[in-house]
């Protein structure tokens, strides 16, 4: 199992579209994926789980993956967050 800490850079936080993008990316990996914030830990392949985290702009999240493609999964998800979920730097 490996993990990595990231910060939400989008001004509007982890709302509808970024959460959907995260779920879609996570779902392409075989590994189990968990995202946690403080004590809350949720399934990274569940949009409802991600929304429950209520991660606003600046929130620190830990991405955790466990499985055959765990390294690729964490790298891909961390890149997605750093890239503002592909929605542009001003989003």
């Amino acid at each position, binding site marked *: 199992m490996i993990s990595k800490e990231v910060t939400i850079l989008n001004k509007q936080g982890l709302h509808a579209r970024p959460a959907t993008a995260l779920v879609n990316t996570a779902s392409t990996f075989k590994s189990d994926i968990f995202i946690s914030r403080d004590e809350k830990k949720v*399934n990274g392949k569940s949009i409802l789980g991600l929304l429950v985290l209520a991660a606003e702009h600046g929130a620190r999240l830990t991405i955790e993956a466990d499985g055959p493609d765990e390294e690729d999964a964490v790298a891909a998800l961390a890149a997605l967050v750093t890239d503002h979920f592909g929605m542009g730097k001003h989003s």
Partner: protein
Amino acid sequence: MRRQDHEINIVRKLIPVEKIENEINKLKKAQDLVSEELEMLRKKVAAYLGAAYGDIIMAQLTVLRDAEILREVRAYMEEHHVNAAFAYRLVVNQYLDILEEQSSEYFKERVADIRDVKRRVLRALVSKQSMLNSLRTEKPIIFVAKELNPTDIMMLVSENVRGFVTEFGGRTSHVAIMARTLNVPMLIGVDGLTERIVTGEELILDAEKGMVWIRPDTKLLQQYRHELRLLQEQDRHFREISSQKAITGDGYRLHLSANISLPIEVKDMHKYGAEGIGLYRTEYLYMMKHQLPEEEELFAEYRHVMKSVSGLPVIMRTLDFGGDKLSALGSNDIRCESNPFMGYRAIRICLDKPEIFYTQLRAILRSSAYGKLSIMLPMITHIEQLDASLDHLRQVKEALLSERIPFDPDVPVGMMVETPSAVMNIGAFAEKVDFLSIGTNDLTQYVLAVDRGNERVSAIYDPYDPALIRMIRMVVDAAKARKIPVYVCGEMAAEQRAILLFLAMEIDGISIATRYIGAVREFILKCEQKKLKQILDPLMAMNTRKDITRFLDLQVKKILEQ
């Protein structure tokens, strides 16, 4: 007709262990039905509103397919031996409870989506068919429900559904606007109707008169069928004359443009031969979602409209949010106001929150590279507001120039004249803009100090009040003195008596709902502008709206009797 229940009644049932798998399969089947339903809805929404709105439905599909929900529902069923519908509702409600507690506005949209998905799944689970399947009949349908949301309307507007009746909702609600925009008859606020009819009964819906006939007799049916045929013939005629310009018998041309708020309406605009879009209401993009749209979304939408009008002129009005629609702006500092029409709205919001204004101006300017676009500013009350708006526009232009993004550097900028202060100071305003457009709906309301939604005073609301007629004249005179065009874009502009008034005053153009274009064109073709100029002096001397209306109606009658 077909009626739809408001809340689905779910009961807790005990399920023996060996049947749990069977129950879960039922849930999966229901999810498949909803998936099909949403997929179809996504296509419709994308076609009507643009791809960005199809994405809203994508988010619902993600909620529907959520792996965690199915896992938790299964776990709950295995522990408590209950039916799938009960477990599903419980699990989703737990998530909704947590999400609703979160104060952030940005999650509210999601809550509404999740609730919508829940409703669809439970309905499919209980009735074993999706809303769409239940509509697959040969006969045309009038859809009766307690309440509907705008996406329901969009989905149901197919060959079969010809009209809607609901028990709840207001004339100005989003559903009502959606139905009007899509040109489907809809009647809202028919209390208790779902209790009085059953699915399959015959129904006549006369949305024009605001009536529903339950189990009509043969005579009434015949009468309505006859009326319908006449309307269809008239519609055919309007389409036949759609390529003619709206020119009076003696050669005066009144530009006939369309008001639109959704890209889908461009089709009707072409069908009835409007000569452009005189008022593109841009609020819809902000109302559909509970969060502010991004520049790229707005740009994609505006560019789509610019391309689909095939070179005809388009006047885009910047955000004109007001009153009840404010909450959709999705910002925490938008509060309930005791007097929203006098409050925080339109240009006042844009100047107070320049980031909102900038985003929209950038998107509008960028789309100006794709056709003949003009910008129109709403709700201007004083010169400083106009100056500040023009200043913002200049800055956006400079930014686009430095980023080498194409736009039309000479895009005309005009203003709506809809406040008494704008009229009284119109000479100064006319110096600074490229055109004026009189918004008679708001102007009437502000001049007569009357809220026309308030039944107790709505009789005071009348655009044919002498005060209004004189003010319109002042605005026209100021525009003529500056040699800039002047247009009218209120509801009255579709009325025959108003057309006479505007021809007499030599107004350059009117913008009206697409459905009136044909009738208005036909009327203009019958008029003689030079004769009408003679009615202006006696008209301006009249002091009561009764005199004015009676006088204009008499002129209309004369023209129609020729």
